[in-house]
C-alpha cells in the first residue's frame, strides 16, 4: 500500500519539494541581512514611545524585495492549506471513481478500508509536513518584520501576532489547517464523486471556515483579559447624538505591544457605559471646549484584549482543534466507505 500511495502521489511530492527548495534558497539568501538590520537597530531592547522611530528606521532600511517576499510569504501561507485540500485531498478518491480504477484497486489482497486508511494517513502526514516546513521557514525569516509591525507607535501598518493576518500564517497553526483541508477534500470527493465539484466545495468550505474562524471564533478560544484605563479626553470622538445622549468612541488606549484588542467601550466613573447628555461644544467645532467638558466627567475605557504572550497557547489550542476535526472527517470517510460500498 505504501508503494501504491507513493507511486500515485510522487509527482505532487516532487513538485512540493521543488517549490519548498526554491523558497528555502531565497529565504536563506535574504534572511541573514534582515536579521542583521534588526539586531543593529535596537528594536529588541527599546521600550515605550522610543520604539516608534527605531522601527521606522528599520522599515526604511529594508531592501524593497524583503517587503515583496514578506507579502508573498503571507500569501503562500494562506494558500498552502487550501491548495493541499483542493489538489491533494479532493482528487484522492474522486479521481479513482471517475477513472473507474476502484474495481482494480479493491480486488488486490488489501481491504478497501486499509487502502483508504493508508492513503489518508500518508498523504495527510505529507500535507501537514509541507505546511509545517513552509511555516517554519517563513516564521523564522519574517520574525524581525513581525516584531516590528506589532509596535503600536506611529507605524502605518499594525499587525498583531494574534490578529487575523499573522496568526494563521505563523507557527504550527498551518499544520492543523492543512490536515483539516486535506481531510475536507477527501470527504468532499467521496460525497460528490466528481473531482471538479469536490475541488470547488473544498475551496469554498475551507475559505468560509477560515474567515468565520478568524472573525468570530478564535477570540473565544481563551477568555479575553479586560482592563479599565483612564481616557485622555482629546482622544474621545463623538459619533453622534441619539435620544439626547452622545455616542462616544475612543481609540483603544492600551499600549501593550502586540496585544490583540477585541473591543473598547467608554464607561463613566461608576463603571456603566457612558451616558453623556449632548454638550453643545462637542457638537460644533470647538474641540478644546469639548475636551474640557468631557474631562470633568472622568470617563474611562473598558478594553477587552488577548495579550501577545498567549500566542503559543492559541497556536496549540487551534492546531489541536483542526487536527481533531481532520481526524473526525477521516473517520467519516472510512465509515462512509464501509457503509456505502462501491
Amino acid at each position, binding site marked *: 500500500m*505504501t*508503494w501504491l500511495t507513493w507511486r500515485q502521489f510522487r509527482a505532487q511530492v516532487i513538485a512540493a519539494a521543488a517549490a519548498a527548495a526554491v523558497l528555502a534558497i531565497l529565504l536563506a539568501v535574504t534572511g541573514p541581512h534582515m536579521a542583521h538590520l534588526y539586531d543593529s537597530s535596537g528594536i529588541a531592547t527599546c521600550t515605550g514611545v522610543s520604539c516608534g522611530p527605531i522601527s521606522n528606521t528599520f522599515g526604511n532600511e529594508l531592501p524593497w524585495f524583503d517587503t515583496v517576499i514578506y507579502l508573498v510569504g503571507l500569501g503562500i501561507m494562506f494558500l498552502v492549506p487550501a491548495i493541499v485540500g483542493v489538489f491533494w485531498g479532493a482528487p484522492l478518491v474522486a479521481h479513482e471513481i471517475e477513472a473507474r*480504477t476502484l*474495481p*482494480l484497486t479493491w480486488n488486490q*489482497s488489501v*481491504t478497501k478500508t486499509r487502502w483508504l486508511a493508508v492513503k489518508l494517513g500518508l498523504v495527510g502526514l505529507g500535507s501537514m509536513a509541507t505546511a509545517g516546513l513552509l511555516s517554519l521557514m517563513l516564521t523564522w525569516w519574517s520574525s524581525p518584520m513581525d516584531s516590528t509591525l506589532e509596535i503600536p507607535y506611529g507605524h502605518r501598518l499594525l499587525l498583531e501576532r494574534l490578529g487575523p493576518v499573522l496568526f494563521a500564517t505563523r507557527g504550527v497553526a498551518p499544520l492543523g489547517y492543512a490536515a483539516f483541508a486535506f481531510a475536507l477534500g477527501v470527504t468532499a470527493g467521496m460525497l460528490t464523486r466528481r473531482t471538479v465539484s469536490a475541488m470547488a466545495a473544498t475551496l469554498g468550505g475551507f475559505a468560509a471556515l477560515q474567515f468565520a474562524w478568524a472573525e468570530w471564533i478564535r477570540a473565544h478560544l481563551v477568555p479575553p483579559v479586560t482592563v479599565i484605563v483612564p481616557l485622555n479626553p482629546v482622544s474621545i470622538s463623538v459619533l453622534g447624538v441619539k435620544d439626547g445622549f452622545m455616542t462616544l468612541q475612543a481609540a483603544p488606549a492600551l499600549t501593550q505591544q502586540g496585544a490583540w484588542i477585541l473591543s473598547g467601550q467608554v464607561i463613566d466613573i461608576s463603571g456603566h457605559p457612558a451616558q453623556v447628555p449632548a454638550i453643545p461644544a462637542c457638537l460644533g467645532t470647538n474641540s478644546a471646549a469639548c475636551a474640557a467638558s468631557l474631562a470633568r466627567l472622568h470617563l474611562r475605557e473598558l478594553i477587552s484584549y488577548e495579550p501577545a504572550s498567549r500566542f503559543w497557547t492559541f497556536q496549540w489550542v487551534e492546531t489541536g482543534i483542526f487536527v481533531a476535526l481532520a481526524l473526525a472527517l477521516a473517520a467519516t470517510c472510512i465509515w462512509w466507505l464501509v457503509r456505502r460500498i462501491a
Partner: protein
Amino acid sequence: MTTALQTSGLSKRYGHGLALVDCTLSIPARHIVGLVGPNGAGKTTLLHLAVGMLAPTSGTIEVLGGRPASGPAQLAKVGFVAQDAPVYAGFTVADHLRFGAHMNPGWDAALARDRIDQLGLDRRQRAGKLSGGQRAQLALTLALAKRPELLILDEPIASLDPLARSEFLRSLAEYTASRQVSVVMSSHLVSDLERICDYLIVLVASRVQVAGPVTDLLASHGQGLEDLVLDYMSRATRSSTPPAPQPIPEA
C-alpha cells in the same frame, strides 16, 4: 467437494428497481462457468456481489466458503477483472506488475513476467496508450498472477475485436488447463462462452433461469448451446412479468 460460489435467496435492489431476485446457486469448484444473459440482466450485479463490491439487499452469498471481501485472505483467493478491464492510465506496464507485487503476498512474479513477454507488451508503455485487447490482457495478467482459486471476469472480451477475443480466450484456456482454478465469466454472447465453459448459468430479467454443467444441459435438451440459451431467454420474457431490466450503476 468445495463450492466456488454458493448463494441462497440472494437479491439486490437499487432504489425501487430489482437488479437480482432470489438467486440460489451452488457452483462446484474447478469449473469454467459461463454466466450468460442479455444486457441489463443482472450479471454485473451478481459478480459484484461475489467480489464484495456490493452488499446484498437480502439473502446470502459465499465465495470459496467465505464472505466476499471480508479480509485480505479472502481477497487473495479471488481474482477479478471488471467490465472494460480497468487499469491505471498513468502507470506503465511495469508499474502494474510492481503494483501487483506490492498488493498481493501470493504474487507470482515469474508468471506475470512470462505472460507480459508472451503478449509482447512494452513494459515502459503507459497503460492508457494500450489497445483494448492489450489492456484486457494486462488486467487478466494482474488477476492471474495473484494466483487466485477463483477467477471472476465481467464481460472480459465484449469490447475486443475478433482477433483479440480469440487471443484472450486462448490464453485463459491455457492457464486454466494447467492449474486447479475455478472461473466465472460473464458474457451476453453464447459463442464467446461455448469454447471454454463446462458449466452454464442463464440469467434473464434479474432471475436465474437455469444453471448446470453444459453436458447435462445439452443432454436434456438435445440441441446446440446457442439454441438452448435462446430458448430460456424467450421463455423468460414470455412467462411471468419480469421486472424491467435495471441499469447497473458502475462501481
